């Protein structure tokens, strides 16, 4: 049912762009176009409470739905809106904020950027310095954010800012919604290792933000940020992507020959594919255990770190395998944007246009969202009190 509906709704053009995309997330324009289409079925935020537009599906149903979207080759949703600030807004936000922002997120009216990291504060986020000083009805914000994915294409951002420099770092942070078209905001796109420039620097120079855009209470921003990161424990496994990447590896191997034999019959490649498939399969079951609310002997956050560690490592290992399967063919540099690529000659495979680019940016998978080292520190600390 769901599968048929997706197949019916997904425009072939979007599906093709998604298949050939060069980054680690879909182009914002494609995401928004698809969100507006899905909104027609009321399926953009199925995981939200029903009163805010959710579908009331069980965790397993949600899992299957996500899996189907990826299998169909649909663009990603705007995660920042649907999975990050949306839940924060309906849990902690004011009635005005709910009325203004939740329908807009549901309907794909604007793209959201996450303004947390700063040049001097990445892993050590709690020490962030961008300051918001209250002045009548507005906060005046000054500072700089970095790694703000897709800020250049976003209408709004949810930011962590320091409203009180005198208290313990975590206590002085607030959660602000900022219109990125506000005067005083300058956005610079950062050229990346894979030729894209989705990452941005956001400079805030005396930006006035209405106090009505403060979510919840002043000084509680850190708690909300933790809520937001905990809220979707299983997404960092990238399980759907990892499953798709295994299938892709098999296809790439089967379409190339060496000494007259396809690569999927060469023992070394055959072995690598089987090993990665084994790990992805185990990861899927690790995800299912979390979804089923299994009672863990260890704190739940330790299991979430397992998903992040394995999920990010597998994304890298699978993309490394894709590159290895292509051999020298992996070295050609293509424009990141699909529409700018030269017309493909029959000498080149379609996947050579994007698999290397993806592998390059996936080096970031063990860096963003809590680096590999930070995840290991967390496990050592919370699981074993070390």
């Amino acid at each position, binding site marked *: 049912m769901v599968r048929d509906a997706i197949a019916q709704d997904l425009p072939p053009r979007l599906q093709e762009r998604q298949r050939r995309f060069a980054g680690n997330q879909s182009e914002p324009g494609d995401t928004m176009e698809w969100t507006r289409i899905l909104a027609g079925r009321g399926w953009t935020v199925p995981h939200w409470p029903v009163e805010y537009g959710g579908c009331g599906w069980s965790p397993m149903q949600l899992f299957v739905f996500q899996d189907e979207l990826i299998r169909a080759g649909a663009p990603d949703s705007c995660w920042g809106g649907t999975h990050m600030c949306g839940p924060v807004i309906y849990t902690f936000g004011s009635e005005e904020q709910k009325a203004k922002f939740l329908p807009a997120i549901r309907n794909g009216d604007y793209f959201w950027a996450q303004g947390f*990291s700063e040049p*001097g*504060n*990445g*892993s*050590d986020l709690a*020490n962030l310095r961008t300051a918001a000083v209250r002045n009548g009805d507005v906060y005046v914000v000054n500072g700089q954010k*970095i*790694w703000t994915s897709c800020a250049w294409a976003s209408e709004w951002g949810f930011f962590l800012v320091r409203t009180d420099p005198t208290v313990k770092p975590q206590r002085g942070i607030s959660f602000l919604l900022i219109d990125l078209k506000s005067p005083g905001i300058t956005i610079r796109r*950062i*050229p*990346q*290792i*894979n*030729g894209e420039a989705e*990452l941005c620097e956001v400079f805030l120079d005396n930006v006035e933000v209405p106090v009505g855009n403060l979510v919840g209470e002043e000084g509680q921003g850190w708690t909300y940020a933790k809520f937001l990161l905990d809220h979707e424990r299983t997404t960092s496994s990238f399980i759907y992507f990892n499953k798709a990447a295994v299938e892709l590896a098999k296809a790439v191997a089967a379409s*190339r*020959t*060496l000494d007259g034999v396809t690569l999927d019959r060469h023992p*070394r*490649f055959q072995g690598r594919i089987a090993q990665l498939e084994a790990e992805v399969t185990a990861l899927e079951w690790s995800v299912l255990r979390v979804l089923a609310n299994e009672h863990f002997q260890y704190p739940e956050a330790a299991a979430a770190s397992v998903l992040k560690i394995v999920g990010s490592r597998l994304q*890298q290992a699978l993309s*490394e395998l894709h*590159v*290895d399967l292509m*051999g*020298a*063919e*992996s*070295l*050609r*540099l293509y424009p990141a944007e699909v529409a700018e690529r*030269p017309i493909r*000659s029959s*000498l080149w495979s379609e996947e050579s246009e994007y698999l*290397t680019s993806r592998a*390059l*940016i996936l*080096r*970031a998978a*063990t*860096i*963003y969202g809590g*680096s*590999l*080292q930070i995840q*290991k*520190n967390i496990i050592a600390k919370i699981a074993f009190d070390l």
Partner: protein
Amino acid sequence: MDFNYSDLQRMLLDSAERFIAEHFTLERRRHLRDSGSGLDDTAWNTFAELGWLALAIPDEFGGLGGSPADVSVLAAALGSKCVSQPFVTTAVQGVHFLANAEVPRTELLEQIAGGTARLALVHTEPGERYANAEKRQTQLKPDGQDFRLTGQKFFAPDAALATHFVVSAELPGEGFALVLVEAGADGIDSVNYPLIDGSRASDIAFNGTAVSLDAILAKGPDAAALLVDAQDKAMTARLAQAVGSMEEILRICSSYLKERKQFGQQIGKFQALQHIMADMFVATHQSRSALYQALANSDKDRAARSKALALAGITIGEASQLVSRQGIQLHGGYGVTDEYEISHHYRYLLTLEKIAGDIDHHIRRASGT
């Protein structure tokens, strides 16, 4: 065994390190990658003036007669700044073809030394994965005294910047042959494109290109041997480039660990990162040893040399992956931008590993399969 540098090598290294560090800034390399042909004319002239393009040319042809060990000193210096100019294809591989042809090409060797000629090997055909001197689809068809060259070639590194091609083809009655073709000759259709390290490669179609009898560099088993020897020389130089790049990564990362602060301290104080740095050091150290092993065997018979090179290729390929991946990891978000050196080393090392025989290829070569 003497692992210290000779006087010639010291001199090379001094001039190389100075010029390369001053000239090949990150900005310049990014500019070269994004615009024009990819060739750095100024640098190429300097390469000629400093004698680098004559280094591997034997004395009897007016060169410096440098050994593979001498070449590797220079190659490592080039690797330290991710230089992707066509040095290896022209001044190492190309020189070997010309100096060891049935009739050595002295005039062209002089032009190479002077910086006016560049050579690229045009060998791989569509669908091939690291081809040896196997039967070619590309044909040399007799045409009176001379020949016509017809066939499709795929992925020829540095061909876009070359003045001359060494093309492999099937010669009726002789089998495998190597011929010298001017890049500007009639009947050549090239599609040029950039690679991720900023260099250029080409797919080239020959549509009845006229080739004279004396353009044949070698034929039959001699041609096959010439191809293998030239490719092995190129591979040795590329291994040295990789070692130079990794050694530079150690320098870049260790200073970053001292500069960058998180949680109120240098991130280099975190033992997790100290151990990563130590792993990178171990792999890089082993890589230089592997390079020396390959160099020590470079004048042995073909089988011994080939085995030695394949083993070095495995060690250095795996080390390149570890060192470049961890190098990015240590940099956090800065590691995946185009504005920091480390991501350029990543792409450079990936290119060196894959361009003419990857780890899998060397494993099969070393195990004789």
